[in-house]
């Protein structure tokens, strides 16, 4: 399941992203997060990714990321998410 993050993803609309990801995890879907519109994220997004990845790994899956910009990659690294492979379209 591909979840496309909006360009202005952040604390103001984080609940929607959280609900979507959680629902996808609960349904056992493999999740691909499309960052093609995202220039930067904030901590609320990083936390959701961390917590979702943790649960996904418990289910023997992991979150996949697509079209991460260098800026976002750096931000994810600050949150301990490094060496993320880019998932092709």
């Amino acid at each position, binding site marked *: 399941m591909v979840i496309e993050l909006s360009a202005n993803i952040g*604390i103001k609309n984080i609940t929607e992203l959280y609900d979507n990801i*959680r629902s996808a*995890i609960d349904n056992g879907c493999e999740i691909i997060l499309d960052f093609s519109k995202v220039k930067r994220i*904030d*901590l609320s997004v990083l*936390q*959701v990714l961390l*917590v979702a990845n943790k649960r996904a790994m418990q289910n023997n899956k992991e979150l996949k990321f697509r079209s991460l910009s260098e800026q976002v990659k750096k931000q994810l690294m*600050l949150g301990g998410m490094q060496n993320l492979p880019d998932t092709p379209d």
Partner: protein
Amino acid sequence: MSESPIRNIFLAEAKEILGNLESDIVMLEETQDQELINRIFRYVHTLKGSSGIGGFSNIYEFTHSLENLLEMVRSGKMEADQQIIDLLLLSIDWISSGINESGDPAIEERKSELLKFIKNFMSAESEGKNGSTQSVIKVMPVGVGYNYFRIKACFKDDIFESGIDPLMIIEDVVSAGLIKEKCINTDSLPDIADFNPEKCYISWEFVLKTKYPESKINDAFIFVKYDNDIKIENVTPEYTSERHDEKVIENKRLGDILVKKGIITESELSDVLNFQNISNRKIGDIVIEKGYATEKDIKFALCEQKRINSKIETGTVRVDAKKLDSLLNLLGEIVIGQSAISGIADELQDGQGFRLKNVLYGLDRTTREFQEQIMTIRMIPIGATFEQFRRFVRDAAKNTGKDIKLEIIGEETELDKTVIEKISDPLKHMVRNAVDHGIESPDDRIRLGKNPTGRILLKAYHQEGNVFIDITDDGTGLDRNKIRDKALAMGIIKPGDDVSDSQLYSFIFLPGFTTSENVGDLSGRGVGMDVVRTNVEALRGTVEIETEKGVGTSFRIKMPLTLAIIEGMLVRVGHNIYIIPLLSIVESLKPSKNSIQTIEGKGEVLFVREEYVPVIRLYNVFKTKSDFLNAWDGLVVIVESAGVRIGIMVDDLVGQQQIVIKNIDKYVTTRRSVSGAAILGDGKVALIIDVHGLIGEMT
């Protein structure tokens, strides 16, 4: 090797001299006053002498060269032009870091670089050249050489509500250098089912290698450090060879004491230090093991070392601020005790009660005088705080390509030490805003018919028991329309809402509110003014804005002279006592039934002295019981803050007394309408009303 007391004397003196030097050198850009140049020369000369005595040979050597350069300026052989001023500033930056980080190769490298510049300037001048041989001195980061800081950043869980993104702050800090060790603590992250996406769970701990000084790193956390757990520790010695050298120096000091006291000989000390280098054991243990001294001797020497280290001998008496706080606390207890005795006096028979009250009046006069004396000791001039902005404005103006002059009035105005410490950061932010968003570029200013040099004025003065600080710029002024558009976009107001100018401008203090299209290096993230207001209100102060588009903006901060004690009016609502600061009270009255009206959309108002004043029922505010339901049955206390008046309905006035303010922890209440509490004579606790906060909550 220098002894500890001399080293400490030098460090204290150097800090003061370097602060004064920085301020004076920046003023050189405005005036080549001979007395100013002489003063700068004298400071450097004193620094040279003191560093020599203190054993700081590095500093001595450097200041010797600097003194020679300044001699040429002083004697008129050289003009203190922009390049010289830049060199002087970089030199004092080097001295600051050289004092703390001596021996670091990067520091030595920088010193050589600066000495080369000094030599080039001096030889160019003596050869009659005009300095064109000089390379441009880039304004380098103030921190010379590499510093290592261990940074721990743990943010409160509701930090997002303040409009702050901790990740952005961490990115800012990390961009200042290189991370050597990193630890992200995600232990608090719950399972996805229990996770609240609007709470902060993550904290960081990392070591940053950077060319910048601690102050620059501190600045990144400037708006969050009071409310969050932020620690910055300079661990440079651990990451350079300094650590070993420091340990050696420390041990040698103990060794010096042992030799001085005749406990061991010089050659025995040499033997011990050589052994210590190999074995890395405590010097005291080695001395005992080799039989040079007994355990008792070592204990005595260690006590002596501790005594020397903790004693700072200077020409003035330095008082630990904690001692003053303790004195003030004790005074507070005396005031409470007095109040209790006064209560007892009221219950006594006429004659005895009268005599006791008479004695208490005398005691009251003495405690008031005592209080004033302690307050005086705590008061320090704000001048030093203002002066630190000269360098900041100068550098910031250069970085933004603007020409800005900083004027300071009222530097002798005294404030409570705690107030000064806490007002510095909000002032810094407002000055930043003035530089970044207020003052236009020289070209724009010329086009607008203004002087190309912008002006920022910092003014402090006392008035009616308060201290005022004005930050005024002659820049672009606040854009009312932009603020209104932003407020609409954020849903703070609706289209068609009639909002006064002062209300509109107050929106800039809301979290996340910025009309900036660009996030500047200095400001524009929509974080600062919210925290400015919070910090000022924490000091029981207020901030007002006056602005005119195209003309400029003025922020006025009003604060009490002291945070510790106020004159308060005790009022009763039901069984509870509340305290209203006397300075906020305009008058108290028993309103007539006809003077109380209810206006749709405004609530209850009192018509008094030709104006309508909103009435606030205190029992409603604190959800408590009152003797009366109608305002005309009780009393109304008219209070005022920042030009706004309200009437507070109470049951009765109890009396006026000196109140010692006890702070209330945020876990008890975060209400803006409460500024603290006080313990009354009968041991009961009374809440102190924050009039400004009450008006803010209710309107």
